[in-house]
């Protein structure tokens, strides 16, 4: 239990500096095999590719929509208590989202099928995802208390959080349908390592003038926290085998789920391309190592009440214990091990892209060893410009981001994508991604919100993605 509390507290704190994942740089970046992971219908012309294990895909995003580390920890001579009161307690809104995602590819590969119109990709990656909205009223209670808030209803629904860690085993098919249409489908098997969620809380706590006594305290609660895997990890930590337990649970020893990714690319004409994808349409069924906690009921108390002379009828009566028992009965705190289903945070991407400039010399014409495209795709242009939309399903509803991008190819050895993204977290998010090809070796590096690098501590959103692959387009 101690570990669970510590873990949850850590998650909540860490989430305070993390931000939901949007891979706008990787999306529709066909030079990078991992673009298939954000759109299984991306146009690719590889013969095969193999990701360097553990290095092929690393992504992490950190951020916060309401506050930055600099707001609190800047060495500005101000009292940290004033800064927390003004900038966090008073400055943040309940819509401020505190979330984050990371992914680490363990295994990644892809190959062209016998039918050159088909491309198959597969792999395993480890993913962690967590979100917590700013629990404003809880923070007020913790920082200031209820003493100066007579009649204020502290809203218990402000606690809204979820998080998970899992391994994902996937296999995808990318098929050129002709007429410029590419469809993609990826099946996923989720092996959950841990999960927690507390998203449907309702109720309030309020202190009012009492009817009999001076004050009345009312708790109306309908709250639940569901977890899986935390007990197992807690025990493993005590036993010194935490790593092996994580590995075991990540390889089918925990809870399992299924999901799919869908995607497409379509050439409206020679230069205009529309794409879209729907990711992680799936769920995990949690039945193993489940522990759920609930607080449900309604109680109004005005301290210990003694009405004479009836209260004196039992000289041994323990009024305090009766008081505690009464509150327990009215608002019971319970735990159980009932299984539950947790849906994945589904993401949606879509883009419209206009290609222009000189068509890039195809690898088929190249006299290098790693040339020759077997796929008869459309021409590649040196430049591409367009817009993207990203949405992710979150507990308080969809979170949306809009991106404008410019994509530039420099021959066969390098491609660059620059993005400008607007979302609830930033209006100045400029990102840059580069993919470099040295023979069969592909290296990509992408970073977001570059303007914030002038002062990283003041950034509310910083992210990067990088990876290393071996790519072959086939030999002459």
């Amino acid at each position: 239990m101690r570990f669970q509390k510590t873990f949850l507290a850590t998650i909540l704190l860490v989430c305070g500096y993390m931000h939901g994942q949007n891979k706008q740089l990787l999306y529709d970046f066909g030079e990078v095999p991992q673009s298939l992971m954000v759109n299984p219908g991306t146009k690719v012309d590889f013969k095969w590719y193999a990701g360097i294990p553990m290095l092929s895909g690393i992504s992490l995003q950190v951020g916060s929509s309401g506050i930055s580390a600099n707001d609190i920890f800047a060495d500005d001579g101000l009292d940290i208590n004033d800064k927390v009161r003004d900038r966090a307690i008073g400055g943040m809104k309940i819509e401020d989202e505190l979330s984050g995602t990371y992914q680490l590819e363990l295994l990644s590969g892809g190959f062209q099928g016998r039918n050159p119109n088909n491309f198959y990709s597969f792999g395993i990656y480890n993913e962690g995802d967590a979100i917590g909205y700013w629990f404003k009223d809880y923070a007020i209670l913790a920082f200031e208390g209820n003493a100066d808030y007579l009649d204020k209803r502290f809203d218990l629904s402000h606690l809204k959080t979820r998080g998970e860690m899992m391994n994902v085993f996937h296999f995808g098919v990318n098929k050129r349908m002709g007429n410029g249409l590419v469809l993609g489908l990826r099946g996923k098997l989720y092996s959950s390592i841990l999960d927690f969620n507390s998203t449907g809380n309702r109720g309030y706590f309020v202190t009012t003038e009492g009817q009999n006594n001076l004050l009345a305290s009312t708790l109306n609660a309908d709250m639940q926290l569901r977890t899986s895997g935390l007990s197992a990890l807690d025990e493993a930590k005590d036993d010194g085998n935490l790593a092996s337990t994580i590995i075991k649970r990540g390889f089918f020893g925990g809870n399992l789920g299924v999901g799919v990714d869908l995607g497409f690319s379509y050439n409206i004409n020679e230069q205009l391309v529309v794409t879209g994808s729907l990711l992680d349409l799936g769920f995990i069924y949690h039945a193993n190592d489940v522990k759920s906690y609930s607080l449900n009921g309604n109680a109004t108390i005005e301290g210990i009440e003694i009405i004479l002379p009836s209260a004196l009828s039992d000289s041994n009566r323990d009024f305090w214990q009766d008081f505690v028992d009464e509150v327990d009965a009215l608002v019971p705190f319970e735990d159980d091990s009932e299984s539950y289903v947790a849906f994945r945070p589904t993401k949606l991407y879509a883009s419209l892209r206009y290609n222009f400039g000189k068509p890039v010399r195809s690898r088929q014409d190249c006299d290098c060893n790693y040339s020759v495209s077997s796929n008869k795709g459309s021409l590649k242009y040196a430049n591409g410009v367009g817009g993207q939309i990203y949405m992710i399903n979150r507990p308080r509803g969809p979170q949306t981001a809009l991106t404008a991008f410019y994509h530039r190819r420099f021959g066969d050895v390098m491609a660059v994508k620059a993005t400008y993204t607007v979302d609830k977290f930033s209006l100045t998010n400029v990102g840059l991604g580069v993919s470099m090809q040295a023979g069969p070796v592909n290296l990509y590096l992408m970073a977001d919100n570059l303007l914030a690098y002038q002062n990283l501590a003041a950034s509310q959103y910083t992210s990067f993605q990088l990876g290393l692959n071996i790519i072959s387009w086939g030999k002459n």
Partner: protein
Amino acid sequence: MKSFRTYLITSLVLVFLLNSCMEEQNFDQYEDLRLRPTYEASILYIEASERAIDAASSATFFSRDFNFDAFSESVFSERVRSGIITYEVENTTNQEFDEILVEFLDEAGNVLYTESFYVPPAPTAVLQREITFGPGGENIDIIRNTSSFRVSATIGADSSTSTLSDPKITLKSSGKFTVALK
């Protein structure tokens, strides 16, 4: 030439990506962060009707210990720094109360603190009193070590019966405590 341009761009991109700054941060400030909320709630409510008072066979018509573990719970006692206990006594009976005593008792039954009220018969104003514990007031250890209350009431001379519809005496109390969570 083309190769040079490509690598020049690559270098510039990498330099740009890797060249970041950060204003000076002082994470030691965390040690100065104080979480000291103030919570308030009712404590004890005692009500005695005039009929119950009249039925008393002795001058000390009421005396009783009430277990009250809230103050001595470690989650509270280790964190409480100051507090105010507010009393409100209202008497609508014709009975005079020579003394109403609220005694704070520790685990062993020792009296740590006593609050005494004289309450004249109705009509009389509502008696209000605030007692501060902690800096500038009574010792906060009284609160920390309180495990129960003893409330007793001593009535004065015989009196007539009130003509009000529901004559009674009430003792209300609430506490407002500042605790150090960090």
